[in-house]
């Protein structure tokens, strides 16, 4: 799975929890879930759970702590996919 596929999958998930259509349309690695997409912090958990289901990975607390923007989240997904591939 390449970065673009991950980003597309992530955008589909995020779209369920934001009303900031403009920020979603212009999503980039720099997009911040709270500052730009105005996602409620209690919905960050939903995003983490949705990512786990969609990409079939487990996200530990340490990784979850970083997941406040697109860049960090894509990196976590890439790392966890690589861990799965190595098993």
């Amino acid at each position, binding site marked *: 799975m390449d970065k673009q596929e991950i980003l597309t999958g992530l955008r589909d998930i995020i779209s369920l929890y934001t009303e900031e259509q403009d920020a979603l349309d212009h999503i980039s690695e720099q997009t911040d879930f709270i500052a730009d997409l105005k996602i*409620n*912090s*209690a*919905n*960050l*958990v*939903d995003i*983490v*759970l949705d990512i*786990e289901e969609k990409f079939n990975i487990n996200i530990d*607390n340490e990784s*979850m*702590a*970083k*997941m*406040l923007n697109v860049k960090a989240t894509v990196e976590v997904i890439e790392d966890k996919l690589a861990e799965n591939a190595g098993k």
Partner: protein
Amino acid sequence: MLGNDVVDLKLARRRNNWRRANYLSKIFTPDEQRLVYHSDCPDLMVWLIWSMKEAAYKIVNRNTGLRFFDPKGFHCTVQIHDLKATGCVDYRGEQFMTHSEINEHYVHTLSFKTGSGIEQCHVVQRRNADDYVLSFNLKHKGLMLQKNNSGLPEIFIRKTQSRHLASVSHHGRFLFIAYLHTTEEVVS
């Protein structure tokens, strides 16, 4: 140092399904999950504990300048007396005292680091709106809600010409602005 957090219960009911599989175990410790499942009002208990964690996180964020999402790292204990709750949040050995107000519309929590407490705190509740800074400043002539050089909220008291740490929380219909009026917290 202080932090605050409000949860609009109506909005939370609509937007946040905490009964979703694995949701609570991602954000609450086993002890906190037990508090929820043994409570007569599990919905209220979820948002009470959540607001305690958020209010304490705001102090840690402000003290360290770090942003992170680690709700499970904040360990809460709480006692509820009618519509008030007092508690303690421990984050990596650092402790924060909390005072929460609970009613049918919202849960609001104030958190304090040692040295400051609820007796030194002013709380202003307003209707949540995009122009809350303007409407607050129009309504409270002696005060000015503004941002300091680091972009963090503070209250400027015109009479004493002093600047005081503030914490702003808004969710759904509600907005709360809390600030300390102790001299030790005056920002020079």
